């Protein structure tokens, strides 16, 4: 238990350090941008007849730091603001704090991504075992090729195909939104949740299709390497049933996949931009996309920061899950 807490503390420190690094990076990126947007807004406000003090205050609210004074001062303001979850104010929709909008969008993306990953993990692992056990046969070979192909195809291709088929060609699913606001109001009751699920099917399916191939391939090679282990031979000699041996095999083979799980979060959140754009699903990715179209830089850095933070948190969770599942890791630390 103590080592577990140490591990958690280590992860949290590293995660915070990473978030800090990303923060610093985005801060300087915006400063370095051609025609520094902060300076531009400041000058625009002065040109509109504001006094320098007022303009400075207004710009500071938008970006979370003051456009004048030494860079380290601005940076400090920005970071202290962030520590209080103050991400500035949206430039485009004036007056609405970025944090509100971003945290409003986040649950939808997390819901989508998690259900997509869960489905693809289950399907991929199952098929991966089949592909490894039958790897000499046509089944195994075609499973692997199909897996690698879908793994290789970028998510937006799958998204476009699904959208074209199921929202336009056959109108089986809605073409946008998280739920139908005309029919149901948000709340904890069956109709609303069904409607949310109905809107989520296609985007989640796109995630799942785009990523199950990776699981399949990882599980296949993991099973292939565990198959040669002595403990399986021993189990067979002891006369254990096929089912028991399969359980031995599966428990050991699935372990390395949790490290892959950690890496895949970054990819999946990256893919969220496409999937949400294609299916008009208003989540974090859509927000990042919209902010770029509108050149809304505080919104852009805010949503980018939250996406990164979400990936880091997901990584930590995946790693902790790994410690729970694999006793060997627990003992090492």
């Amino acid at each position, binding site marked *: 238990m103590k080592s577990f807490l140490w591990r958690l503390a280590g992860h949290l420190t590293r995660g915070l350090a*990473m978030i800090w690094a990303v923060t610093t990076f985005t801060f300087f990126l915006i400063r370095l941008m051609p025609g520094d947007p902060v300076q531009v807004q400041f000058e625009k406000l002065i040109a509109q007849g504001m006094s320098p003090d007022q303009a400075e205050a207004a710009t500071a609210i938008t970006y979370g730091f003051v456009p004048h004074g030494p860079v380290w001062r601005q940076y400090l303001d920005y970071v202290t603001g962030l520590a209080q979850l103050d991400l500035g104010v949206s430039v485009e929709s004036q007056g609405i704090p970025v944090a509100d909008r971003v945290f409003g969008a986040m649950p939808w993306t997390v819901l989508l991504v998690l259900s997509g990953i869960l489905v693809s993990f289950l399907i991929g692992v199952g098929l991966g075992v089949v592909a490894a056990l039958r790897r000499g046969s046509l089944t195994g070979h075609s499973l692997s*090729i199909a897996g690698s192909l879908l793994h290789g195809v*970028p998510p937006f291709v799958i998204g476009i195909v699904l959208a074209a088929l199921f929202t336009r060609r056959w109108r089986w699913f809605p073409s946008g939104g998280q739920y139908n606001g005309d029919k149901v109001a948000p709340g904890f009751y069956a109709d609303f949740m069904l409607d949310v699920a109905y809107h989520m099917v296609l985007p989640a399916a796109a995630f799942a299709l785009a990523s199950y191939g990776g699981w399949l391939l990882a599980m296949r090679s993991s099973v292939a390497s565990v198959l040669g282990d002595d403990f399986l031979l021993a189990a067979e000699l002891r006369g254990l049933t096929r089912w028991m041996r399969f359980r031995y095999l599966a428990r050991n083979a699935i372990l390395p996949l949790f490290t892959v799980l950690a890496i895949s979060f970054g990819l999946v959140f990256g893919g969220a931009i496409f999937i949400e754009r294609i299916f008009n699903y208003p989540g974090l990715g859509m927000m*990042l996309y919209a902010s770029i179209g509108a050149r809304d830089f505080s919104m852009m850095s805010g949503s980018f920061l939250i996406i*990164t933070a979400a990936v880091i948190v997901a990584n930590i969770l995946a790693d902790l899950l790994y410690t729970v599942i694999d006793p060997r890791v627990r003992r090492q630390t």
Partner: protein
Amino acid sequence: MSSVPNSLSAGAQSKRRPPQRPVGGGVRRRFWRGVWVALKRRPSRIAGLVIVTLFVFMAVAGPWLYPDRLPYDVDNVYAPISWQHPLSTDFEGVDVLALVVTGTRGVLLVAAAAGVVTMFVGTAAGLYAGYRRGAADSVLMRIADFVLTVPGFPLLIVLTTAINVGTWWKMALVLGLIGWGGLARAVRSQTLSLRERGFIEAARGLGLPTRHIVVKELLPNIAPYIATNLLLAVTAYIYAQVGLYFLGVLPLDTSNWGVMLNAAVFQSGALISPDALPYLLAPLGAILLLTLGVVLIVDALEEIFNPRLREA
């Protein structure tokens, strides 16, 4: 001739058996024969090679086959499929096949250049970290972890908005510097396991210079991992670019599969009208075909370098 059956039986028996060959001309010849044998085992792999060669050919020669400004014909929008327009025409009456072919070069050029950047940075960082160990290792791997953790595509979008990536080499540099983390990790773990092996120890014992050990002893053994990783990285770069254009983050004034997709999906409503379907399907088909080619080649590479996956 002899090396292949040998490695086959060894692969079936022993568990850990990465290739440990002495380096020299004869080995190189045997390597190419191994490649040929692996290709021949499944005709699909030769097909993969043909597909990828076709795309490279399109990238090199494509723009020479067509005039700089593709002819358009407003009266012939979304023309039916014919010999003249094998893949129909787009919303301005431009031949879709021509668009696909001319769109190849820019994407492939940037992706290849980015691949070179990734290869140099990733290999150098991985080799140095794995061979030197110590503080340099921890620092480099922290950076690699950072690059791996930060979600690549959002970062790419933010970067391309912030920096003007108008020229191809800037785009390549940005892509290459985002994507080196995975390669560095793979190279490092290989270096770590190889440096304890007998032949490296022997080389160190002989007092050979580090440069010799790294370049002549380590690198040839790591090359397969670099090759596989690189091929996948280049494919990812192609898709990242197509994705950027598809979202409309980059200016849509070049010929690119992503530009076609953007127009087809978001602008001209090709999702709805069946006439425009070829215009949507052509870039999708190009991406699928390229993926298929790369997958088949990686399949061959894996068998050449990792005999454990070979079926008994």
